[in-house]
């Protein structure tokens, strides 16, 4: 009988009615490293937040060393000997390394509130030495490189002498050497009897490091066991493997020769370089690239949210110099941003106020500027129905009470009221469930069939392959290559996005395109 350090038993959790976790059960053995893999939105973060006491499960129990464990706050988790190393850094940049590491328990002079700096620095130096880190305890964190900061964060987690350690994408900002360093450290900790959960998108690392693996997809455990049984290929299949036929509508090409949107040599130093693209009426053009490749930034420039240094945007042949969103909208553009909550919706306001926001001027009397609410409501209702928006009351229900998919429909709906001739959709299916995704695809198909041009930005290659007429692949602020529908291949697109030559036989790093 294996020694179980931690166990999840039938954990379920929903957000706004959508399952983030469904009956998740697995165990972490003492003295082992467990890899946890899954796509963005598969439920890894939710699981970690439950373990850390940030969220409470609706159903199910947690067992810590065989006993029921119900953390209500991160402090409870810390007391129980569970420490986290998050991918986003939680360091105080204005404090020194030593202060950051001992932030939860400063060593004090006897019975006074004064910190004993010497003790603190000595303890810190010893810890850093044991980790093979060449960082002075007195350094301010703001003067450290991102990789060094990550290592300090790891040191901080280790300083508490925790029993169970969780690492969430710890290597994203580390160099290869630092990563090696970290891995040998983790193995050393494992041999010392600690139990570790390691979350990563870099499957090659997972394969190299972990003893056991658990694969999550859409909040469910798809498989798990000794890593030997799970070659990378199988992991990917389990993570992604869905029946593509059921997930996407049939693609009909509607593209015409009329250019709706054109960008000519758009440049902004440090962000994008010399970008020229064209979108035709009825065409769905995909833009793929890793996080930070410039596709979102470029979309914002196209729409006039951000400025660009050089180049020109033409809508239906008409140049829009130094335009703002207002001009873009007047010229028939629509922009569904990747960030619904912050940039798309007024979460605290009713649906009608959100759906009406863009087209309000069209529903205004000329002189008095009084809004014709009845006419607006009728039209909003029509659009809501055509989008199959599920809600109780357009006028009273706040957007934040809707599910992710329905929220996205409200965002799309507010632009549809304008009958746009060009839509920019940035990650329109992120964070919404499979059914709602399908409906979003259908809406895109419908708009294309009605002659709108669509610029579709996504981090999921499959949906781009299924939906687009062309795919533009980005990397580091440049367009690397354009694929037409006949040439679509998941592997080639990924290779290009990682700046690998197509004829290059070297193994590409298997990563899930993502930016959680």
């Amino acid at each position, binding site marked *: 009988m294996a020694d179980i350090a931690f166990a999840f038993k039938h954990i379920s959790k929903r957000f706004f009615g959508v399952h983030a976790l469904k009956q998740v059960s697995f165990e972490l053995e003492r003295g082992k490293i467990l890899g946890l893999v899954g796509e963005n939105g598969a439920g890894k973060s939710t699981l970690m937040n439950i373990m850390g006491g940030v969220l409470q499960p609706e159903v199910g129990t947690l067992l810590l060393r065989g006993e029921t464990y119900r953390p209500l706050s991160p402090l409870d988790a810390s007391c129980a000997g569970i420490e986290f190393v998050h991918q986003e850094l939680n360091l105080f940049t204005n404090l020194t390394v030593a202060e950051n590491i001992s932030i939860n328990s400063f060593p004090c002079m006897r019975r006074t509130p004064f910190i004993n700096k010497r003790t603190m620095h000595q303890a810190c130096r010893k810890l850093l030495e044991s980790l093979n880190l060449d960082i002075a305890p007195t350094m301010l964190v703001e003067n450290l490189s991102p990789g060094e900061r990550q290592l300090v964060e790891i040191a901080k987690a280790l300083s508490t002498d925790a029993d169970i350690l969780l690492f969430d994408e710890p290597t994203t900002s580390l160099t290869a050497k630092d990563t090696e360093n970290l891995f040998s450290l983790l193995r050393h900790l494992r041999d010392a009897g600690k139990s570790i959960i390691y979350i990563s998108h870099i499957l090659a690392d997972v394969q190299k490091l972990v003893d056991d693996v658990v694969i999550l997809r859409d909040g469910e455990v798809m498989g798990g066991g000794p890593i030997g049984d799970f070659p990378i290929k199988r992991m990917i299949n389990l993570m992604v493997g869905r029946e593509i036929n059921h997930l996407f509508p049939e693609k009909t090409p509607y593209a015409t020769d009329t250019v709706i949107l054109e960008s000519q040599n758009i440049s902004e130093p440090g962000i994008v370089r010399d970008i020229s693209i064209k979108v035709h009426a009825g065409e769905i053009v995909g833009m793929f690239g890793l996080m930070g490749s410039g596709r979102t930034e470029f979309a914002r420039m196209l729409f006039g949210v951000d400025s660009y240094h050089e180049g020109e945007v033409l809508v239906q042949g008409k140049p829009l110099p130094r335009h703002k969103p207002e001009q873009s909208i007047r010229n028939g553009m629509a922009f569904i941003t990747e960030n619904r909550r912050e940039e798309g919706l007024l979460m605290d306001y009713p649906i009608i106020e959100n759906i009406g*926001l863009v087209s309000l001027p069209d529903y205004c009397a000329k002189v008095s500027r009084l809004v014709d609410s009845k006419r607006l409501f009728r039209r909003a209702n029509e659009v809501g129905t055509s989008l199959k928006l599920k809600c109780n009351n357009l006028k009273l229900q706040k957007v934040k009470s809707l599910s992710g998919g329905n929220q996205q429909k409200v965002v799309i709906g507010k632009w549809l009221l304008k009958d746009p001739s060009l839509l920019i959709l940035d990650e329109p299916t992120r964070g919404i469930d499979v059914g709602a995704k399908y409906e979003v695809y259908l809406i895109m198909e419908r708009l294309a069939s009605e002659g709108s041009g669509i610029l579709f930005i996504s981090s999921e290659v499959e949906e781009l392959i299924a939906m687009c007429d062309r795919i533009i692949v980005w990397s580091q602020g440049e367009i690397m290559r354009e694929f037409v529908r006949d040439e679509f291949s998941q592997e080639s697109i990924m290779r290009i996005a990682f700046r690998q030559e197509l004829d290059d036989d070297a193994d590409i790093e298997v990563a899930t395109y993502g930016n959680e």
Partner: protein
Amino acid sequence: MNTTPKKKKPVVDDTQHQGSGDSLAVQPNLGKRILMSEYFVLYLTILYIIVLTPIIPRLWHPMNIQNILSNLWPLLVVAIGQTFVLIIAGIDLSQTSVMAMSSVVGAVVMTRSVDPILFTKSPLWGVFLSEQGGLLSNSIFALPVGIVVMLLVGLFIGFLNGFSVAYFRMPPFIVTLVSMMLFSAMAIFLTKSENIRHLPEAYLEISKNQFFVVSGSLIIAIFVMVLAHILLSRTLFGKRLYAVGINATASQISGVPARRTTITAYMLSGMCASIAAILYSSRLEMGRPTLGSTIFIDIVGANIIGGISLAGGKGKVTWTLFGVFFFIILANSLNMLNLSFYIIDMVKGSVILVAALLDVARNRISREQM
């Protein structure tokens, strides 16, 4: 097709709330319903009046009612101006200086005679002011031009504030603090701290009761209130103002001209302060360089009591009305109890504090009910 588990959204969120105990009743009880009601402050005011009536019967004396109302109208107007700015999560500290400047500038235009002993040291002496009075003394245009100039002063200062906030992205607190200092000092500098008297008769008539409580002030204040209400609830500008207040980024991407909306809000705030200056200075029968210098707390306090959120995106003209009404009744009743100025301020401060706490409580309840 849709696989979303789409049950009818329950009124109460069904996740486990270990911390909050049994505070989640499925049907909110009566107390909670009253607390959550839009008219909560009004109910409270009525209750307060009922309780006070036997203690201070003079409350209902016609003279006192007239007094309450003549205090109410100008504060209401200036507080409504503040409401516009609060809705976009701003604040306008300069309203009081707008009032001072407006009343001084208006009086300089309109006054019919000036005491040379008091004003020879004023920088305006000989240019705008003389023994024969102000710029347009005795002209028939004195009144209309005076009023227009007063409104322009408010619009101008409001524009400066709004422009700095919208285009330089300066914090509204700093911007309006500076313009408060600048223009209050300027009003005092221009007049050497003396009040300008001898305003035209017609101007003084504005605040006089023509028939019981019916006065020009009442008509102007109600007009401003109705207009502001329509502006906020029915027009393009109003809808955009709320949108900018709750989420400026999302509004901009949706094509809302956020900068223009911001500037307009501050200009409206300034203009309302100017209108209030007209009502006050007509009642005081003078242009006063320190006009309004003590009422900033009343303006913001009334808004907070009314339930206007300092965080933006939330507020209605009716709420401001209730807040102002409560605040005025409170001040009046404390006065009638012969309490000292300091005690009255301490009570006012406590009431604002309680109002702010209530707002927090109401927000929590509405979150739980989501």
